């Protein structure tokens, strides 16, 4: 089962890529995938995505198929799903 991950804004630099395909290797929730992605990439992406308690940072939004992920509710992933990470940006 494969999903696509997209990184927006400065998260792109943290991940070293704009997008990647990931083989889940089994059933995973969005929350489990986020933790796994952070562990695989290491810093700086881990620090961008997760806080000290391993939860999604308040500065980042995650979406599965364009719907916001609620960290408190396990969101099962399916083949072909797209997970998007987005950080807050501003203007100038």
């Amino acid at each position, binding site marked *: 089962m494969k999903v696509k991950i997209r990184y*927006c*804004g*400065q998260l792109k630099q943290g991940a070293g890529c*704009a997008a990647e395909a990931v083989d889940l290797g089994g059933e995973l929730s969005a929350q489990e995938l986020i933790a796994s992605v952070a562990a695989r990439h290491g810093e700086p992406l881990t620090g*961008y995505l997760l806080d000290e308690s391993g939860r999604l*940072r*308040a*500065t*980042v*939004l995650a*979406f599965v198929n*364009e*719907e*916001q*992920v*609620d960290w*408190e*509710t396990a969101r099962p992933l399916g083949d072909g799903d797209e997970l*998007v990470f*987005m*950080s*807050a*940006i*501003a*203007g*100038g």
Partner: protein
Amino acid sequence: MIEPKSLTDEERAVYEWQMWVPEFGEEGQEKLKGASVLISRIGGLGGVVAYELAAAGVGRLVLAHAGDVKPSDLNRQLLMTHDGLGKSRVELAARRLRELNPRLEIEAVAENVNEDNAATLVGSVDLVVDCAPLFEERFLLNREAQSQGKPLVECAMYELEAQLTTFLPGKTSYLHELFPEKPGWWKREFPVFGAVSGAVGCMGAMEAIKVISGIGEPLAGELLVFDLGEMRFHKMKLGVS
């Protein structure tokens, strides 16, 4: 509540093409004429928002931006000019907008939104457009707009990407609820093209026009995220169920 203002014959001629838009008409134009909008910073984003709202005939624009024009502003801040280097940004912007549309009331405030002026600035308008570079300023403006029950259009950009949403009182969250913390990695100066700020600025102006006139569907509860590098546009559904 916006009080529509009747149009003169000259205004009917100027705004004719947009009054042909179905469901907008003269009634929509009268609402724009009666409306007031605060634009927080008139740089790459806000300058284009202001230009489009002035062209569209929003009756009163309040521009808040401190400081003078620098060379590094000129790649994207389209209300600024080379011969304006070293001069007040907001005064230059007001002059350009009056040249475009002398029928409007333009109020130039040579200050950024801060704790001392936020309540007065927000209280003086019907709608707010947030184009500021610093999250402290954005959160303050959002809190004030929410507390005063004012709609707020939120525009943001980075590199080739942009974000746009509209916060409506009593109907949506505001920025400080969507992002309770500012990102630690955000810097005051960042990479971006003027064509990116211009694109999202035009869309932000359209959001303001829609909210004021009642046409279309504003991006309430949705976040438009786009990447002009790939011409990829996504409308993200905000809120967790």
